[in-house]
C-alpha cells in the first residue's frame, strides 16, 4: 500500500473515531440529563412522602411518649399502692400472729387454770348364799339390786406454775338407808331375848313447799394444795389420799380392773386418806428407773380426824416406790409404813357451885374435862407389786397391822358376836384385845390381742384371790375370796365389768358356808 493512502485512511479512521466518540458522549450526556431530570422529580416526591411519614411518626412518637409517661406515672402510683398494701398486709399478719399467740396463751391458761371433771358408776349385784337367812345379809344386800357407789367431781386449779389445788368430792345418797344398829335376838330353846333395836337412817324431807325428797351427802375425798417447786421436792397440804398400794392410788372405778375393791380398801384396813401434810417427790437415778418417796404427818385415824385430832399424837408414814420402765413394760415395787394413835374421847363441862348454886370459890370453877373412851396404837406395814408387760398385768398388795389398846374399850360391830362363840352370854361386856390383822390380794389380768377384730375395744379377763383377817383372835372374821371376771373398755372413758366371786369364811357357822356373788358395773369418766 502507498504511504499517502495509508495516511489518508488513518486520518479518516481517526476522524471517524473522534466523531463517533463525540456523538456517543453527546448521546450519553443527553441520557444523563434525562435521567437526572427524572430522578429529581422522584426524589422530590419521595421527600414529600418521607416528611409526611416522619411527621406522622413524630406525632405517634409524641403520643407514645405521652402514653409511656402516663404509664410510668400510673406504674409508680401502683407501685406505691402495692407497697402500701404489702405493708398493711405485713402489719395485719403480725397483728394476726400476735392475736393468735395471745389467744393460744389464753386458751392454754384457761385450760390449765381451772377444770372440772369426774367419774361415776352404777352397779348391779346378786348374791347366792347357801341358805336364805345367812348373816351375810347384815353386810350385803339380800335382794338383787342396782346401786351407785360413786358420783365424783374433781375441781382442779393451777394457780401458779408451781402451785395448784385439787378438790375431789363424792356425792352419795347416803346416809339415807344406813343401818346403824342391828338387834341381836338370842334364842335359848323357844325363848327369845332381843338386844338392841333396829335403827336405820331416814333422811326423808316432807315439806309442803319443797316437796318430798331424801337428802344425801357429800364426802370430801381429798382437798389438797400442792406446791411443786422441784420433781424431787413437793409439798401437799390438806386432805390427801394415803400413798400406799395400788388400789388406793388408782382410786376410781374406771381405773380398777375388777368390779369390786379388795378388803384392804373396803374395810379401811389403814386410813385411805389423811388430813395433814405430805412431803413427796420423785428422782430419776437412771434412764429406766425412777424412785418415789412420801413422808406423811397427819391427824391419823380417829373418829373425826378429817376436821381435828383428839390427841396430841400425830400419825407418821413413809412411802417408797421403785418404778422400772422398759419401753411399754412396767415393774413397780412399793411399800408404806404407818404409825399412829387412835383416840376417842368425850368432853364434859364441870361446874363447881356453892350451897347457893353460885360458882364456888375455887380455882377454875368451870372446867371442860376429857374422858378417853378408846385409845390404841396402830403399826402398819404394806407392800405392793405390779407388773405390766405385753397386755399382761400382775398385781398384789399385802398389809400387816398391829393394834395395841391403851385403855379398855368395848367390842363393836361384828365383834359383839364374840362372847357367844366362846360360850359366854352375848351381852357379856367384852373389851377389845391387842391384835394382828392381815389383808392381801393378788390379781392377774390379760388384755386379749383382739385389735384386728375389735379395733380399740379392749377385752380383759381377770382372776384374783383376796384374803382378810382383821383380828387374829377371831377366826370367824377371816375370809377368803376368789373372783373371775371380764373387763371391757369400748373407749378410754367407759369401762364395763362383770365379776363372779365367792367368799369363803373360815368359820362356816357365821355365814352358813360359801356365798357366791355376781356383780356388774358400768363406770364412766367425764
Amino acid at each position: 500500500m502507498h504511504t499517502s493512502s495509508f495516511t489518508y485512511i488513518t486520518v479518516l479512521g481517526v476522524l471517524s473515531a473522534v466523531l463517533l466518540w463525540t456523538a456517543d458522549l453527546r448521546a450519553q450526556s443527553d441520557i444523563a440529563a434525562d435521567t437526572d431530570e427524572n430522578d429529581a422529580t422522584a426524589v422530590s416526591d419521595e421527600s414529600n412522602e418521607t416528611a409526611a411519614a416522619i411527621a406522622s411518626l413524630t406525632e405517634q412518637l409524641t403520643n407514645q411518649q405521652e402514653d409511656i409517661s402516663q404509664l410510668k406515672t400510673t406504674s409508680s402510683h401502683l407501685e406505691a399502692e402495692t407497697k402500701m398494701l404489702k405493708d398493711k398486709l405485713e402489719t395485719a399478719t403480725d397483728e394476726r400472729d400476735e392475736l393468735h399467740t395471745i389467744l393460744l396463751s389464753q386458751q392454754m391458761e384457761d385450760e390449765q387454770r381451772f377444770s372440772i371433771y369426774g367419774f361415776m358408776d352404777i352397779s348391779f349385784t346378786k348374791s347366792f348364799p347357801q341358805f336364805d337367812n345367812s348373816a351375810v345379809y347384815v353386810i350385803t344386800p339380800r335382794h338383787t339390786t342396782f346401786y351407785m357407789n360413786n358420783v365424783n367431781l374433781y375441781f382442779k386449779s393451777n394457780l401458779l406454775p408451781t402451785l395448784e389445788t385439787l378438790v375431789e368430792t363424792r356425792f352419795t345418797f347416803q346416809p339415807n338407808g344406813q343401818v346403824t344398829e342391828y338387834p341381836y335376838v338370842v334364842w335359848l330353846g323357844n325363848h327369845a331375848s332381843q338386844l338392841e333395836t333396829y335403827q336405820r337412817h331416814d333422811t326423808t324431807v316432807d315439806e309442803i313447799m319443797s316437796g318430798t325428797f331424801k337428802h344425801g351427802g357429800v364426802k370430801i375425798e381429798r382437798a389438797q394444795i400442792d406446791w411443786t417447786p422441784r420433781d424431787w421436792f413437793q409439798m401437799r397440804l390438806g386432805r390427801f389420799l394415803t400413798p400406799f398400794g395400788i388400789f388406793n392410788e388408782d382410786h376410781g372405778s374406771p381405773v380398777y380392773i375388777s368390779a369390786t375393791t379388795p378388803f384392804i380398801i373396803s374395810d379401811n384396813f389403814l386410813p385411805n386418806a389423811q388430813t395433814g401434810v405430805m412431803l413427796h417427790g420423785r428422782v430419776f437415778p437412771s434412764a429406766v428407773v425412777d424412785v418415789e418417796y412420801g413422808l406423811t404427818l397427819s391427824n391419823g385415824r380417829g373418829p373425826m380426824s378429817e376436821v381435828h385430832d383428839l390427841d396430841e399424837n400425830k400419825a407418821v408414814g413413809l412411802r417408797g416406790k421403785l418404778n422400772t420402765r422398759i419401753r411399754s413394760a412396767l415393774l413397780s415395787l412399793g411399800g408404806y409404813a404407818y404409825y399412829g394413835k387412835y383416840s376417842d374421847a368425850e368432853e364434859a363441862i364441870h361446874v363447881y357451885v356453892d350451897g347457893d348454886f353460885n360458882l364456888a370459890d375455887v380455882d377454875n370453877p368451870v372446867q371442860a374435862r376429857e374422858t378417853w373412851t378408846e385409845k390404841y396404837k396402830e403399826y402398819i406395814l404394806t407392800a405392793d407389786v405390779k407388773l405390766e408387760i405385753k397386755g399382761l398385768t400382775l398385781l398384789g398388795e399385802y398389809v400387816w397391822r398391829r393394834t395395841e389398846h391403851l385403855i379398855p374399850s368395848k367390842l363393836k360391830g361384828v365383834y359383839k358376836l364374840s362372847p357367844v362363840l366362846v360360850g359366854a352370854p352375848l351381852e357379856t361386856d367384852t373389851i377389845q384385845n391387842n391384835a394382828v390383822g392381815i389383808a392381801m390380794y393378788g390379781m392377774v389380768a390379760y388384755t386379749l390381742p383382739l385389735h384386728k377384730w375389735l379395733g380399740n375395744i379392749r377385752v380383759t379377763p381377770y382372776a384374783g384371790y383376796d384374803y382378810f383377817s382383821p383380828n387374829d383372835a377371831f377366826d370367824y372374821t377371816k375370809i377368803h375370796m376368789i373372783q373371775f371376771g371380764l373387763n371391757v373398755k369400748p373407749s378410754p372413758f367407759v369401762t364395763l365389768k362383770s365379776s363372779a366371786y365367792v367368799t369363803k369364811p373360815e368359820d362356816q357357822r357365821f355365814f352358813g358356808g360359801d356365798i357366791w356373788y355376781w356383780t356388774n358395773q358400768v363406770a364412766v369418766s367425764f
Partner: protein
Amino acid sequence: MTIPQFKFIVLPLVLIVMVGVDAPDLVAQQPDDIVIIANKSFPLDSISKEELKRIFLLEKTVVKGKKVIPINARINSPLRERFAQEFLSMSPVQEADYWEKQKISQGTRNPTELSNTLKAIFSLKTGISYCLRKDYNDAVAKIITVK
C-alpha cells in the same frame, strides 16, 4: 501392688467414705420426720428419749430449775399418733388410757393440745413440743436433739 489391686482396695474405700459422709443427712433430713421443738430460751439443746417421755407423761416437770410445759398436737391427729408411737412407746389408745388413769388417780390432766404447736412454742418460754420437719421454722423455735 499392681494398679488393678490398688483400684480394688481404694475405690471401695472412697465409696464407703462417701456413703458414710452422706448417710446421716439422708437419714436425718426427711421432711416428714418428727422434730422436737422448743422455745429458743428452753434450757436444753438435747434430751434423751427417756427424759422426753417423762416430760410428756408429766412425770418430770422441772428441767434445770425451770418448770417445763409440754404441748401436744391435737388428739387423733396423725402427728400426735406418730409421736405417741415413736417417743412414748404407746398406741393412741394406750396413751388415752394413761391420761384417763392419771386424771382419776392423781387428778392430773393431760398436757395442752393445740393444732399449731410451733406457734405455741413461740409464745411459751419453757414450752416443748414437736412438729414435722417440713413445718419447722427456725425463726420461731429451735430443734432439740433427741439422743
